[in-house]
């Protein structure tokens, strides 16, 4: 269980995390999502005690990370693939971690096997690909068999095999009743393995919900897409009826606050030939973009002067 409460972290005048509150529960994979620079890594660094919060608290199993008696056994942490000295072999890196908690070499060999690092175990970490580095980071996180795992962008740089492996691994870990907090800037990645998603942008909480709830909440949900030969009269007709209209290329209008029936009727009223008409289900990616504010910029560039 990871509990973040009203967490704020400032660096000088820059606010990296701004009053963030969320919980990651046991038996659940909690996706931690946001664009690059949204404050995900900062939040994780505060949770594991590398940095102190400016305000608020972050606890694991009810205690501050720094107060844990045996951190490796309680929280598995993988923050950055570059958390290893490049001159040290993977094996020696893991052995040195294990020694701090009196964990035997047998367990080190076990996590090396589990993460598929055997062929590279005695190579220096500096020679590793990003994917191998991620596997080493995950091996370190698993070392103490912890009840909580905090993984920052674990699929970053992994090959397709590795991505599948991480998805399966985190599902298994959660199924065993562990708490898994997993960050990513890719919504679709999390959609495939997370139960809940915490979305942040500019350090603030934007959403904390299940994947399905976020899809349903998307603007895309309930949008009607209509393609006509002559979009302008129809757009004016719909706006007059109180709908919201976004003009797109190829005579396409995206209409909100109006049903398919209402759009069809309006088209007939102004004598416009309808080429396509249908309602759109929300897309996760779109929901995410809307939440993080990138959607607006994206549309502004795309629509070019269209009314909203």
């Amino acid at each position, binding site marked *: 269980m990871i509990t973040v409460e009203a967490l704020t972290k400032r660096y000088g005048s820059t606010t990296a995390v701004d009053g963030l509150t969320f919980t990651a529960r046991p038996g659940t994979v909690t996706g931690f999502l946001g664009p690059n620079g949204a404050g995900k890594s900062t939040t994780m*660094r505060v949770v*594991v*005690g*590398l*940095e*102190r919060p400016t305000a608020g608290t972050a606890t694991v199993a009810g205690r501050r*990370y*720094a107060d*844990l*008696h*045996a*951190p*490796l*056994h*309680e*929280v598995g*942490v993988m*923050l*950055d693939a*570059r*958390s*290893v*000295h*490049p*001159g*040290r*072999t993977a094996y*020696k*890196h893991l*052995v*040195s*971690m294990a*020694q*701090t*908690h*009196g964990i035997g070499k047998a*367990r080190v060999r*076990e996590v090396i096997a589990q993460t598929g690092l055997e062929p590279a175990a005695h190579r220096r970490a500096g020679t590793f690909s990003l994917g191998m580095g991620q596997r080493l980071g995950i091996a*370190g996180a*698993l070392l103490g*068999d912890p009840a909580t795992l905090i993984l920052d962008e674990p699929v970053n740089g992994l090959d397709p095999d590795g991505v599948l492996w991480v998805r399966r691994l985190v599902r*298994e*870990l959660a199924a*065993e009743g562990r708490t898994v907090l997993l960050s990513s800037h890719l919504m679709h990645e999390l959609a495939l393995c997370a139960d809940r998603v915490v979305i942040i942008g500019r350090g603030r909480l934007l959403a904390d919900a299940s994947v399905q709830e976020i899809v349903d909440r998307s603007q895309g949900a309930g949008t009607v897409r209509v393609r006509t030969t002559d979009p302008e009269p129809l757009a004016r007709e719909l706006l007059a009826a109180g709908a919201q209209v976004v003009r797109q290329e190829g005579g396409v209008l995206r209409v909100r606050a109006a049903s398919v029936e209402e759009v069809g009727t309006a088209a007939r009223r102004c004598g416009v030939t309808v080429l396509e008409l249908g309602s759109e289900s929300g897309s996760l990616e779109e929901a995410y973009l809307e939440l993080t504010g990138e959607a607006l910029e994206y549309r502004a560039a795309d629509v070019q002067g269209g009314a909203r």
Partner: protein
Amino acid sequence: MSTSTPTPVSGPTAARVVAAEWTKLTSLRSSWWIAAVTAAVGGAITYLSAQASSVDPGFQPVDSLSTGLVLAPVGLLVLGVLVGAGEFRTGAFRTTFTTVPRRAPVLVAQTLVVAAFALGVGVLTTTASALGILPAATSRGIAVDLTAGDGPALVLGMVLFFVGMALLGLALGALLRRTVPALVTALFLVLILPVVLMIATDPLVGGGDPASMVASEAVPRTTVVGTLTVLTPGTAGTLMTTSPSSGGMDGAPDLGPVGGGLVLAAWILVLLVAAAVRLRTRDVR
């Protein structure tokens, strides 16, 4: 996942952190390279120096024993800086301080393992230096006995000097957290500052009239600059490798080997405490 039995959870202890830091230090090639090069260069310089001195009528081989120390501080300062700042340069600190979140035990353990490793390097280099003076001594038919007279104190002083230099590097590395600034600062304090101060005391610098040099015979026994020089960590450390009867440096209070060692120890302690305070009160990033 593993089929771990619910064993009582036990975390970092002082001994465990020391074992981990020892693994970290000895699993880097750079540590062994520094040890080998320091011993080889120390032995070689001592050999050459002894050969050169052996033509003097009053040649005493043991006096040449510590001549190899002119370059030795560099290797040990690098060793210490690499341990202290290397963590931060490479990002390994994220692993280190999430594994041992109390942080301070890590710095204590690093101090112990760097001291132990430098002790080994010191013994190795002193042995190489002792071997280095043998050919010259043999050629003059002088027996070398390091167990007699100033010998034991000199050997001990040399080994401690190695330990002191490595710890100075560690403290600066841990305090500054960046390899290059820490190394530059260390080399400045140990090698450059004494030279700068020495030049500053030279009456010829600063427009002094060469004729007035005769008058400089009358300068007091200790000068401000001389005192500052002897208080720099490198010069103070070097005093440990001098005989107590040598009478100290010109223009500086005679601290003796023990006094010099204490001055170096004070430098290390102050810097380590500063590093510990920074580690405790500031974020690690």
